[in-house]
């Protein structure tokens, strides 16, 4: 017997507005209204232009190599360190002074891209788990070892807490399973993947689960069942959002890659009526953790990323949303300067990408190949909570409300000059 569940890809295709090959075509057949199946729905009153600013955070999971993003393509030290993996002058968009943007991002550069260099931690760690925990939690400092312990709250969760209006769904992730970065204390945030997969498998499941939840999840939020009830509360809001997803965009064609489908889905979600202010788009399956075959893997990922970002930005422009939607990438670390057997070990500082209401160009501090740490890694110019502070401030959220001060009590300051106010 074969697995009846939709694949991750089928779920993404469905969310992106395409046919999923499981008997649903076009819109979003998520039933309601007396349990009668809706006919193939007409598009919902279109393009809700958001009156609030929204953040789309694209997580490039695995550790994206900063030196393959913004490339010191004329630096002798780079050429010595990357004899087989280095990018040549014909593989970059020349930005002057020996620096170039990986030309696979060219399409995104054309729609406006900010490259923010030197982002990492002043006390770096080479463990995925440690750095992911820190980025999700929103602190660049070492976390106390908590075996099996769950993080109290995530950076995007706290931002959602600060922005949430009443009981509306404030944050979502295109993740399967929980997205720790979205863990909130009060706001309604939800991981879409499993819900979408179940709805795709059985369009009526939404109704039945909602009936179940109406019965069980309501009631006093206190006592041991408080957390379980609180977690179940946003499901109704999510199902409502899924029911009201507008048609896939006709203004642009999204590529068929994972990131393409995710951003197409993001476009629909942003255009649906909802209170969603933070949207998390994880690239954990596309693994930037290039211990081997770095060029082959990274080139392919950046090909996809560049085209998808450009399509997304054009889509937002077309819908009059470009000023209201900020797109920003994260990655838990960069990669080792010197290559090894066709791959790159874990690193530290990296270059983040931003799109939307930004000033295009190079920001932050260019990496210094002459000043590596004891493990052969780049030093970070900025702790990543300053990058986060930049994003929070644009959302009109006080960084002090969502980020920890350092040991001297200093709250991280936004990086200047990147965002058009």
């Amino acid at each position: 017997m074969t697995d009846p569940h939709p694949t991750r890809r089928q779920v993404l295709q469905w969310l992106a507005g395409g046919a999923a090959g499981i008997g649903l075509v076009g819109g979003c057949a998520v039933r309601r209204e007396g349990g009668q199946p809706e006919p193939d729905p007409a598009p919902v009153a279109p393009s809700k232009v958001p009156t609030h600013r929204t953040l789309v955070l694209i997580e490039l999971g695995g550790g994206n190599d900063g030196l393959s993003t913004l490339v010191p393509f004329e630096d002798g030290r780079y050429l010595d360190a990357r004899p087989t993996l280095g990018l040549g002058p014909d593989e970059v968009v020349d930005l002057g002074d020996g620096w170039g943007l990986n030309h696979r991002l060219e399409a995104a550069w054309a729609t406006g891209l900010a490259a923010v260099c030197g982002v990492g931690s002043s006390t770096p760690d080479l463990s995925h788990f440690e750095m992911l925990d820190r980025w999700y939690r929103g602190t660049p400092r070492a976390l106390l070892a908590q075996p099996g312990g769950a993080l109290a709250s995530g950076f995007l969760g706290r931002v959602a807490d600060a922005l949430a209006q009443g009981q509306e769904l404030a944050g979502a992730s295109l993740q399967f399973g929980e997205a720790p970065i979205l863990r909130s204390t009060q706001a309604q945030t939800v991981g879409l993947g499993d819900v979408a997969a179940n709805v795709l498998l059985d369009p009526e499941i939404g109704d039945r689960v909602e009936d179940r939840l109406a019965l069980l999840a309501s009631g006093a939020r206190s006592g041991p069942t408080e957390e379980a009830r609180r977690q179940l509360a946003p499901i109704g809001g999510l199902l409502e959002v899924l029911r009201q997803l507008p048609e896939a965009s006709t203004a642009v064609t999204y590529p068929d890659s994972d990131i393409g489908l995710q951003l197409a889905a993001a476009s629909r979600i942003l255009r649906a009526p909802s209170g969603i202010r933070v949207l998390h788009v994880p690239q954990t399956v596309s693994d930037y953790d290039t211990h081997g075959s770095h060029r082959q893997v990274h080139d392919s990922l950046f090909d996809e990323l560049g085209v998808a970002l450009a399509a997304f930005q054009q889509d937002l422009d077309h819908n009059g949303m470009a000023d209201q939607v900020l797109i920003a990438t994260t990655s838990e670390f960069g990669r080792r300067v010197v290559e090894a057997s066709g791959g790159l070990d874990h690193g530290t500082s990296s270059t983040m990408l931003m799109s939307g209401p930004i000033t295009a160009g190079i920001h932050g501090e260019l990496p210094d190949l002459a000043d590596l740490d004891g493990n052969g890694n780049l030093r970070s110019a900025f702790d990543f909570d300053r990058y986060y502070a930049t994003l929070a401030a644009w959302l009109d959220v006080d960084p002090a409300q969502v980020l920890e001060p350092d040991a001297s009590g200093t709250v991280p300051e936004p990086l200047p000059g990147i965002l058009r106010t």
Partner: protein
Amino acid sequence: MLRTAEGERAAVAHVLRRTTFGPFPGSVERALDEHGSAASLLEAQIAAPLDPFEAPLTIDQPFDPTNTAIVNDELVEQWLARLSSDAAGLHDKLMWFWHAHFTTSFMKAHAIYCWRQLRSVHEHALGNFHELTRAIASDAAMLQYLDGDDTKATQPNENLARELLELYTTGRGHYTEDDVRAAARALAGWVVSPEFNGAERIGSWTLAEPVTFLGESKVHDPDSIVDRIMGLDAVAPFIVSKLARSFIGPRVDAAQLAAWSNSFRSSGYEIRPLVEAMLRSEAFDGARYARPRTGIEWLCTLRRVVDHNRMEMWDLIPIAQVPYAPLSVAGWPDTWLSNSILFARIAFIERIEVSDDLIPESGDRARAALERCGLFATSSETIDALGALAERGASGAELVRAALAAPEFALS
């Protein structure tokens, strides 16, 4: 302690939730009949003799290597059947705990070696942590999983060394990268037989000279690596806090944890006295619904509630724990109360076949459904919700589904 009858049943249910993978239908009532109180039941669970390890016939017979999928299924199903049975007790809980702790996946290691790893875990689960770790550091399935197979001291792989420290013994912050590299060299030199004859050390592949590891300079092989690690103060609190989270909950008094760590360390890492102390503590008694029900606990209780013998693995991976299929080398994260998993579980409960015959046609059917799920002294919201359903004449199946979806069922 004086409790109402319902209160005593709830206390019994709590003991069963923490010392078995239930409570299963009827087991609270039976336990109360047999032992009279939650306190007596607890002592009986602690005193229960260890069952011998049973290897399933399909694994130990001559094996067709092309049938890996079937063997994996069989391994999972036989262990789930054991955990879902009335025979499973405290020893089984510890076996599962160590299995989830020393992560190993049959997506990479072979199922036959995984089964033999289970034998080691069975032997040491309520024994000694130092000896258990020694066994695991040389275990064939673990070597396959963390790339210790086919390694030479001159060109080692750091995976096993790093995870042995970071995930299995001390946690981060107690060793350097140099220590990881030294451990990698000392742990190298194995070849794991593809004919299932076990793991063998090849002399010429092992260290020619001892290395310095955690400040000690005579370390030369897996056993001495483990022995040196066990000399670190950090080991006891790392393990104690994880065990306390499992048997009690996330909020245990720091002084209490420190006391248990000191005893664990000075006993030479004896597991049984530590677990007994935890179970007999006031903290345990007060930890009703203090933590989420883990995936495996949820799964085993559910199986018995709906009376299913087998469940399809692909349904289970997102919402439960499938043995030997951890989500990553860090195991299964403690996100059992996330909305995605809760939704997916409720959807699963809606989809599976449930018989109307599981609860009686008459009487207090809401209570019967809750008790079938091992839920006693539940919140008034849950009782009211089930009561409303019963009043509307809901079927037995619907009442059981509703009880399984109740927030209390998601908790231990």
